[in-house]
């Protein structure tokens, strides 16, 4: 955390202490809007032998911050700090994620909620906002304080307005991308300082319920850590007559069985989180733990066994889950605590996820390079279109005429291209393409670039580390193997209900590629003074004089005669006698 942020954090902590009374307010006015809180933990043993734990906390509030003339000041479950921000900046939808690590699609399959390494923030503003850029700038600074992150480094040079890739996930059919802002900070490092403010947004904090498991010393001892906040308007009921606000806090973490397990393939809640569960959050209407047992009993053994089973279609796959309802006392058994235990039996194979993408920089030398984005469609017989979005900083000067898209070594013409060129020091490149992926194919998108020479004050303190280029985003509707569930009214687990499913035959997937680390031509900063002095001297003395010598012609001039001789010559000329020299 920078010093400025540190002070921001302190201020926030103090403020929070002061309005910490919000949860204890039992006297709810009758007129106040209904709100509810749900919490959920999904544990999915992955094929690679790792364990994926996904927390979701959802707060629903039947109110509208943005309604004119109505000032919302009474908060119960919804965090006041976020509510105020939403109403002040007229935010329609806000998605922010902090991720440390890279989601390994090839080993782990698709995550429930994908996120790129570093920080990602995208916001839809209400269409009444006149100064979107101003609101955006202020919002990032405020969020930077709330989450103790370097979001204040988001400015116009790394903000883009994607035209198609990021549609609102909630209510409303906003299509005017002037009200959308998207930015990533691939270099952002996520640590406990970001986790603490995130936990403080929960109604129970980390005192009760599933959140007691969120101990940073274990969460950050993992292969992947991602925490996010998603705020969006949703329907209050099936008829969708009025709007409700939904706040989803998600935390995804993948534990490495290998490093921490010391060879033993055995896992329990206690080993993962160094805590067991003893109660649900008292404010929660539902509190559940799901364990994916689709591969049971081939891969692992689960204890204690539970009779409650639930089936859900998620990411194009029908999965079976054991459900542990924390609101029921019998879940905890006689020990009054729940410690799930998993024993592994076999080894998993590499997955072939239907959609998979990766990216790298090709070429060598510090002048030019080529960005390669490779997208795999592993579906055996279905072709489907994907939207590829690339946001490249201005200091990589893209040669857009070198853009090629090839599938199966044939040219693949994108049906839609949106390209916004960069302006030096003002805005990044934005490239969006709709590409049809043939079945069972590898599609390669390449574009060449030139590395810009920065001004010497524009280099970071560690210029030889390189400069980051954020992940590219591949969004697609992937054909589903099983019929997706389009019925919203059913009481679904949270993890399967984040992205609305509009049709049965396909499901929405977003895949992020790895960020790039690109070396720019870097002067030797260790001795700039010597270099500048020497160069200037050589140029001034050497070049100047040599130029002078080479361009001038020299003539030996006659020494002027002394005055006496000149006078004598004058007389001699009159006399007609030869002159003296």
């Amino acid at each position, binding site marked *: 955390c920078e010093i400025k942020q540190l002070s921001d954090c302190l201020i926030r902590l103090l403020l929070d202490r002061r309005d910490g009374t919000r949860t204890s307010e039992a006297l709810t006015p009758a007129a106040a809007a209904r709100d509810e809180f749900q919490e959920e933990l999904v544990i999915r043993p992955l094929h690679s032998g790792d364990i994926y734990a996904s927390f979701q906390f959802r707060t629903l509030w039947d109110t509208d911050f943005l309604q004119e003339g109505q000032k919302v000041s009474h908060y119960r479950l919804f965090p006041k700090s976020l509510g105020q921000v939403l109403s002040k900046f007229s935010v329609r939808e806000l998605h922010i994620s902090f991720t*440390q*690590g*890279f989601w*390994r699609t*090839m*080993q782990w399959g698709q995550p429930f909620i994908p996120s790129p*390494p*570093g920080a990602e923030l995208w916001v839809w503003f209400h269409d009444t906002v006149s100064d979107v850029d101003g609101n955006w700038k202020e919002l990032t600074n405020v969020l930077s304080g709330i989450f103790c992150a370097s979001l204040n480094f988001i400015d116009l040079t790394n903000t883009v307005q994607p035209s198609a890739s990021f549609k609102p996930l909630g209510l409303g059919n906003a299509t005017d991308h002037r009200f959308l802002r998207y930015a990533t900070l*691939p270099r952002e490092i996520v640590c406990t300082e970001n986790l603490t403010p995130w936990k403080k947004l929960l109604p129970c904090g980390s005192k009760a319920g599933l959140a007691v498991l969120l101990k940073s010393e274990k969460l*950050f*001892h*993992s*292969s*992947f*850590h991602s925490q996010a906040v998603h705020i969006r308007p949703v329907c209050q009921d099936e008829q969708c007559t009025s709007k409700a606000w939904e706040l989803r806090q998600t935390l995804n973490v993948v534990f*490495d069985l*290998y*490093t*921490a397990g*010391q060879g033993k393939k055995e896992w329990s809640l206690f080993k993962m989180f160094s805590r067991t569960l003893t109660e649900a959050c008292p404010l929660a209407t539902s509190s559940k733990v799901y364990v994916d047992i689709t591969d049971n009993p081939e891969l692992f053994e689960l204890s204690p066994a539970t009779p409650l089973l639930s089936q859900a279609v998620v990411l194009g796959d029908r999965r079976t889950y054991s459900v542990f309802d924390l609101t029921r006392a019998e879940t905890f058994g006689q020990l009054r605590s729940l410690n799930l235990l998993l024993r592994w039996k076999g080894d998993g194979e590499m997955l072939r996820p239907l959609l998979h993408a*990766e990216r*790298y*920089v*090709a*070429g*060598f*030398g*510090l002048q030019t390079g*080529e960005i*390669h984005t490779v997208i795999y469609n592993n579906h055996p017989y279905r072709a489907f279109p994907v939207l590829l979005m690339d946001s490249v900083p201005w200091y990589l000067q893209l040669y857009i005429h070198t853009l090629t898209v090839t599938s199966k070594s044939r040219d693949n013409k994108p049906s839609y291209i949106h390209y916004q060129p960069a302006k030096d020091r003002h805005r990044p490149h934005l490239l969006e393409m709709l590409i049809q992926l043939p079945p069972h194919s590898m599609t390669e998108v390449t574009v060449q670039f030139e590395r810009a020479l920065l001004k010497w004050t524009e280099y970071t303190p*560690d*210029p*030889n*580390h*390189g400069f*980051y280029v954020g992940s590219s985003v591949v969004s697609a509707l992937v054909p589903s193997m099983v019929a997706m569930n389009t019925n919203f009214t059913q009481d679904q687990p949270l993890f399967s209900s984040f992205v609305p499913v509009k049709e049965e035959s396909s499901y929405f997937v977003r895949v992020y590629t*790895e*960020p*790039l*680390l*690109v*070396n720019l031509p870097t002067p*030797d900063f*260790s001795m700039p003074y010597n270099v500048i002095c020497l160069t200037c001297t050589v140029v001034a*003395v050497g070049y100047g*004089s040599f130029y*002078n*010598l080479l361009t*001038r012609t*020299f003539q*030996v001039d006659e020494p002027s005669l002394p005055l006496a001789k000149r006078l004598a010559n004058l007389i001699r000329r009159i006399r007609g006698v030869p002159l003296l020299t």
Partner: protein
Amino acid sequence: MGLLSDPSRRKVLTGLLTRLNTPICIVCYLAGIVWFMGLAFEPFTLRTYMSENAMGSTMVSSGERALSLAKEFDAHKRQAYDGMPVEWLVKAMQSRGLEVFTQSFSRKLPFPDENKERYMVRGTNVYGILRAPRAPRTEALVISAPCSPGDSNNQAVGLLLALAQYFRNQVYWAKDIIFLVNEHDLMGTQAWLEAYHHTNITGMEYSPLQGRAGSIQAALSLELSSDVITSLDLILEGLNGQLPNLDLANLFYAFCQKLGVLCTIQGKLQRNDWDTAEGYTHAAQTMMLMVLKQACGRSWGDHGLFLRYHIEAASVRGINSFRHYKTDAATIGRLLEGMVRKLNNLLERLHQSYFFYLLPSLSRFVSIGCYMLAFGLLVVILLLRALDLWVHLGAPALAAVEGVTEAQQPSGPGVLTVLTPVVISHLTGVALYLLPVHLQEMAVEHFPVSETEAVVLTAVAIYTAGLALPHNTQRLLSGEGTEQGWKVLKLTALLYLAVLLGCTALINFSLGFILAVTLVPITASMTPHMPKALSALVMVLLSPAFTVLYCVFIYQELIEAPVSVSEGWMLFLSVISQGILDHALYGSLVYPLLALFIYPCWLMFWNILFWS
């Protein structure tokens, strides 16, 4: 500069320079050689030191680590006997928790490589990536071990796998680590690197890589061929004389000191008696070996190819020299673990320390600022001679200002007399560069030789044929060569050679220096008025080809494997074929430099000698 713009004082200065030209040149030459030899003298060199702060000694907790090396590889050694056991390697890496990928490549050499007995090369690289936890796949380190046929280098692969297993259980990695086992030594590395960076410079055919790990920050290559190691040798010289950052050598040296492992460079141990004659000779020999190895521009280990991609890399070779002092594999494992861990700590690429240096021993180095002076002293001779000629050329012209008709004469035939030999000698150079490889089939048809011999002998033949050119050049020209003509030609050739050597030395000091030592004396003193037979002999004996021959003999002498004249000749021929192969396979630039520039330049002076 006022000195030069004042005509009378300028006259005095130029007079002084032309009068004392020969003594000054001789003094410069001797001073250059003496300075160079002095570089190996310990009081004149600097002690090496770690520049990179992130690799400071406090960053790694040393102490006994339980690194138990898998002895199981001994059993699998036999499996590795015929080619590369790809399937076994894939399984072995997968069971250690790495992401494993393979890459196949093939390449038809321009002509058969008789040293390594290969022509149509087909191979497979196996690599496993250890993903660092919570790292976004932007940075990587490479540990590679060439899997060569026969019994050699099995221990390196075994150590690599043991390291992989140990590293997999550690949590402190911040960069992905790629474990690469490459077949056909350099060609495998070349195929892998080209595929990783999606370039194709040398026309290799390879399958694309499936897994990557971002930009590679550093690489280490292991070469261990016996169970018992007495010392470790560090190899730094890479393609085209590129060297890795000196901090990499410092790191190796620091860990060797810490773990008490004997370490050598150029296969020579360090001595402490710098003040004795033996001590100095030892240091000078070590440095000379480095200069010779660097000058030949080939990659002396797998690491050499990484340098092109701005990846700092070095090879570590285990040596069993039957000393009493022995190092077990666990210690070497610990040494490598320490080095990799420190590289893992790097925040930036290695850039703090020197990229241009010579090492008289592992703990002493000569920086570019010191050794360039030796080269500068040699090249300044060429400039002085050029200045002398310039003044001589200008003086009669000044005298002829009064007679306007005479002043036209010297510049009239000038352009053609100079241009013709320049063009003809360069065409010879082009022929020397292109014909050997392209004419091999024809040569094999007409003479009872193998392809390789055909290529080398064609090269020698063209080189020798070039010597006959001056007479033909003279016949081509209508006018007779004048006194003015050869001076202009020599002036051009001197400046050309000075620029050539200067540029070469900036990239590869050793090559530039060795060429300067042999070429400068003859080029500086050559005139048509010298006794033809004697000076022709001297010129031939100091020609680029003979320089290569001398280097072969000196190198053999220095590695304590002296050869007889006939063996030396065979070695010389194989060096030529290796040079051409290195150019074709890896893009080494020494052969084209010699054929296209240095040799034609030398021919220009040869032309002057036979000016009539």
